[in-house]
């Protein structure tokens, strides 16, 4: 009986897994072809220095896109990430300037704590209050962005005001690789382990792929949903500190519109917008592809004004390709289970 009910599910799951793998290989092929074409036009593309540049440019995106991915897996969306990054960057930068003697490493836990407060408010409104994620985070996007203006009275913190040690936080490279890249790697490994091996991580997938089944299985839905927004806040707090340190400035428009890039990286990386699936590797590749395109446009001397259009086109392409392949897979599996 049990074996019978399981058999139709199995090939489907195997096919979906194969698809996810294929998806990642697909992005890699796309990246390789793009890299080959660009390097034909400009050999400066295929150099270690340029590669490091690209990775450096996408490090913050990777951190936040992974947070966004976890939210999307639960069928939610966090539109407030850009504002949370901006607010923590501004608050941390002010404190760093106010207390120049503070060891800069303290800015990291401080930023994460502030981010946790913002994220938990999002989580409480969504999980506790039952407000749809898109509405709640849309409102929070305005609120947090407005708080940045209220906090700073429209003023910016500039590079010369920041202590050099704080600026070294992201740029310094005591281990040979810029710290910023190391932070991104640590976060990626942490999220990979969390989603794959921790109980909460597995529950997050369960909540997203079949909420009813998850509820019947006794998974505390609200708590899981609260947690992904909390994590999103914490990672945005970290990203805010790194942003202020990397760009040596905290502005009122820091990370304005960044939420779109994070959703783009997730969707291009194969995260299903309807929830339930998505992999860390895919998201990293998605962010990498966005980074390469921005870098390549500059190197082949296409006006940077085309960047936004290219990014939009890429999102559309990714969702179209995904849906066509997935639909074909479903047709194959349904035919198989019928015979």
């Amino acid at each position, binding site marked *: 009986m049990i074996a019978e009910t399981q058999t139709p599910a199995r090939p489907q799951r195997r096919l979906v897994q194969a698809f996810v793998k294929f998806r990642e290989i697909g992005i890699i092929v796309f990246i390789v072809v793009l890299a080959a074409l660009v390097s034909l036009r400009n050999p400066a593309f295929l150099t270690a220095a340029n590669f490091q540049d690209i990775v450096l440019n996408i490090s913050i995106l990777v951190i936040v896109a992974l947070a966004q991915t976890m939210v999307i897996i639960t069928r939610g*969306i966090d539109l407030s990430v850009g504002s949370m990054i901006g607010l923590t960057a501004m*608050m941390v930068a*002010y*404190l760093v*300037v*106010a207390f120049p003697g503070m060891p800069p490493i303290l800015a990291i836990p401080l930023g994460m704590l*502030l981010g946790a*407060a*913002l994220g*938990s*408010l999002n989580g*409480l*409104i969504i999980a*506790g*209050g*039952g*407000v*749809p994620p*898109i*509405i*709640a985070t*849309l*409102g*929070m*996007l*305005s*609120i947090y*962005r*407005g*708080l*940045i*203006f*209220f*906090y700073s*009275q*429209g003023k910016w913190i500039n590079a010369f005001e920041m202590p050099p040690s704080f600026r070294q936080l992201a740029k310094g490279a005591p281990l040979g690789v810029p710290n910023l890249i190391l932070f991104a790697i640590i976060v990626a490994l942490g999220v990979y382990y969390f989603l794959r091996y921790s109980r909460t991580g597995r529950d997050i997938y369960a909540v997203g792929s079949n909420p009813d089944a998850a509820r019947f299985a006794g998974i505390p839905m609200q708590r899981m949903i609260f947690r992904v927004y909390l994590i999103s806040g914490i990672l945005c707090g970290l990203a805010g500190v790194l942003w202020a340190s990397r760009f040596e400035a905290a502005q*009122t428009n820091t990370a304005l519109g960044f939420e*779109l890039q994070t*959703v*783009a990286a997730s*969707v291009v990386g194969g995260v299903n*917008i*309807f929830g339930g699936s998505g992999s860390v590797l895919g998201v990293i590749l998605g962010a990498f592809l966005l980074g390469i395109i921005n870098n390549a446009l500059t190197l082949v001397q296409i*006006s940077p*004004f*085309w*960047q*936004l*259009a*290219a*990014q*939009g*086109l890429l*999102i*559309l392409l990714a*969702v*179209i390709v995904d*849906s*066509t392949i997935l639909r074909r897979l479903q047709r194959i599996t349904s035919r198989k289970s019928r015979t």
Partner: protein
Amino acid sequence: MIQIIRSRRAMFLRWEWLLVVLIVAVALINTRLSPFFLNSNNLLRTTSDFMELGIMMLPMVFIIVTGNIDLSIASTLGLSASLMGWLFMGGWDIWLAAGIALLVSVLAGLLNGVLIARLKLPALVVTLGTLSFYRGLAYALLGDQAARGYPDSFTFLGQGTLGTTRIPFALLLFAVLALIFGLVLHKTTFGRYLYAIGNNEPACHYSGVPVERIKISIFVLSSMMAALAGFILAARFGSTRPDIGTGLELTVITVTVLGGVSIFGGSGTLVGAILALLLVGILRFGMGLVNLQGQVQDIVIGLLLILSILLPRIAGRLSAGVSWRKQTILKTALAVTVALLFGLFFFWSRALILTQ
């Protein structure tokens, strides 16, 4: 069934009355705050700041009623205004340029609609993609340039008033459009279909409602209205930059949801949305009178959006007689504590800098 409909209708009536009460309250506070509020010239002039919003809100009500969303409207606005400006700078007649831009906006809406209705892709992602794409095209057209020097006959769209009165032309245009959209939504089969699609799309499909065609048409409509809003905005500014209207989609959605249109589709009225537009309008006008920065005003609008969903839910739970479980109390306490702690830290660190 009839009872459900009746109680729903009662609820919406209440929602719209609540908006009216809020509008009156804000208006009273405004008159207290500033003697310049109750000045018909000021009031009429200030409406022109919201007409672009209103014009884009009308089709947004249609789209959200069907359970979809269009995030790309502000970018379509930017694309059509930029294309018009670019053609105008290239020596074209302004009205011909506007006509071409309107045609392009139809194509933009078609792309959205076909991807969403025919390929069954989620509206959120598709319009998020076209948000970047259309805005990117606007930047590609104008770059860091601004188109300007529009003739007076064109700037009349955004700046003109009717005859000798002080009624802005854009206000009249909005009123006419609102009437048409309201009649279509509430008095035609097409309008009933929109609600039906929002309530149960598969059922509509099986009962022979042309779901695909309706969905495509409302996305085209939305893009055309965005283009119209773009012309009015460009006419009001007297120039077009590629970043024109950036972020307006969020305000439009906020106003629509605040007006009682359910984000899940299937319910809401156009009157509610127009009342919400009025509320946001006079709220912003009042905050402007007491010299609050635009971005700080956004805090109030954001709060209003969240509370408009949160408070009815809490009230519903309380009136349904759900007892205050330990968990609920704990959660509320947690929210209050986190907000308080963050607020304390926020003001403490802010004072630290401001006193320096």
